């Protein structure tokens, strides 16, 4: 027992960090691509994409969780198809990561999109005249310039993932060791007689993790912004 935490409580902390980490890391490439498309793309359906991306922000989390369950449960065609290639979400920690990723996605995309819109496209033109292909322009000019925004988006998504409750519990339930993340664990302890002590310890842990993450990301963002501005 460290910090007076029991094994069940530790399990919830570790699971939450793992879920939030994978949710953020896997959402990031897609988030950058979608932000790029929304900021720069001129295609039919751009507004529709914008609406779909933002839906998790305005829908009740329970609705998002239920929609995920409807489409990805082993009974649904999509869930079946994924199961046949070995990907299972329902009632697994991977499902918790997916739910957390979906809920944090709009926040991530908004932050990255703002950063992309702040990039001077004339710098990218200059890079092209210097012989850089579109991919090279993106990797060597656009990406370094939007890095502070990407980091901000990742931190927001991570924080959202750490705190996600409604969609997670609806989609993958509250299974100790598998889908019982910090918020679910706090909720579960509060339902048990005498569970207040454990719940309170987890609340403290939540506050500490959130504070450390925010302070570290602020410092990192400042350092990156300095680097980018030159």
């Amino acid at each position, binding site marked *: 027992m460290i910090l007076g935490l029991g094994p069940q409580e530790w399990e919830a902390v570790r699971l939450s960090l793992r879920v939030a980490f994978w949710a953020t890391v896997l959402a990031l490439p897609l988030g950058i691509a979608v932000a790029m498309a929304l900021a720069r793309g001129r295609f039919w359906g751009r507004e529709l994409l914008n609406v779909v991306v933002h839906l998790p922000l305005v829908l009740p989390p329970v609705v998002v969780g239920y929609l995920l369950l409807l489409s990805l449960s082993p009974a649904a065609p999509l869930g079946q198809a994924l199961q046949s290639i070995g990907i299972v979400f329902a009632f697994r920690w991977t499902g918790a990561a997916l739910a957390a990723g979906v809920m944090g996605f709009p926040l991530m995309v908004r932050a990255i999109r703002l950063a992309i819109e702040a990039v*001077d496209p*004339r*710098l990218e*033109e*200059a*890079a*092209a*005249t*210097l*012989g*850089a*292909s*579109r991919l090279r*322009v993106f990797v*060597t*000019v656009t990406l*370094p*310039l939007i890095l502070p925004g990407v980091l901000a988006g990742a931190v927001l998504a991570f924080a959202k993932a750490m705190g996600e409750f409604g969609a997670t519990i609806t989609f993958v339930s509250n299974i100790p060791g598998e889908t019982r993340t910090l918020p679910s664990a706090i909720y579960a302890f509060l339902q048990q007689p005498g569970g207040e002590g454990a719940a309170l310890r987890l609340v403290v842990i939540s506050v500490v993790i959130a504070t450390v993450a925010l302070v570290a990301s602020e410092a990192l963002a400042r350092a990156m912004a300095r*680097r*980018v*501005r*030159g």
Partner: protein
Amino acid sequence: MSLSVDIRHQLGDTALAATFETEGGVTALFGRSGAGKTSVVNAVAGLLRPREGRIVLGDRVLLDRAAGIDVAVHRRRVGYVFQDARLFPHLSVRGNLLFGAPDDRHLGRIADLLGIEGLLDRRPRALSGGEKARVAIGRALLSDPALLLMDEPLASLDQARKEEILPYLERLRDEAGLPILYVSHAVEEVARLANTLVLLDRGQVVRAGPAEALFADPGLAPMLGPRAAGALLSGQITAHHADGLTEVAVSGGRLILPGVGGAEGRRLRVRIEAQDVMLSLTRPEGISALNILPARVTTLHDGQGPGVMVQLAAGKDLILARITRRSAEALALAPGTECYAVIKSVAVAPGDVGRS
């Protein structure tokens, strides 16, 4: 290497129609703001897609709308020096210079040529305007271009900085053998650098041809601005005098100019502003002006105001003189009249003398 441009495009209210050809050296696109100069350069770079037209650089077709050819910007091999430098803020000067370079073999030489070897580890933000302009030129040069595009590279600089950079550009023109398409609305820069001049007005090419011929054309004076009109004389330094004056041989005689740098025998291009030239029917005596060239009137061109632009032949060179209509009538000037062109030495500013 030759460049041939023939494009048509709609720019807001202005119909851009630019057709010209040039054989290497510096080709200056000259015209007022909004004349379409930058659009022509952007079309050559591939940053603007003209509605129709054809652009050929050497033996490479960069654009041919009719044939469906439109080479991507990054494959055109044009070095573009933008008016606003556009250095990458997240890279050091070295990183900027090498961005488009195949390797760093020429870094030292180019940095040396542009006088930026001491700045390599700085960030663009820490550079002055003149330093940024030079880094932008170096970056374009190091990308191994087949053509250099320069859009008012000196516009954001004060006179002293311009004087500092113009010699670099002259060296580029004379030593690198790289064709340069140069946009400017500053007559002095164009007079210093251009071999070929393309005059643009409201999207149309008014005239295109050798710089000397166009600068000596009295009919084009209104476009250059009557106060800025002036012919270009080519000459050769023959002696530096002890009192700080330089003697320059021109085809019609000799000119005494305020001290010009360079060894004897060096070829120069001197711009004589039309408003600094006086005309006299007899060789003036007891006059402070040091330069008196025998000349013959070739044409007179009436302007809108009380002035007349007179073109004179002095040897093989042409000179422009801007005088009042009253004087022209009093002297009974007409094509063929023999007279003397009187030019004060101090009227020729250092910026009016360049290498050729």
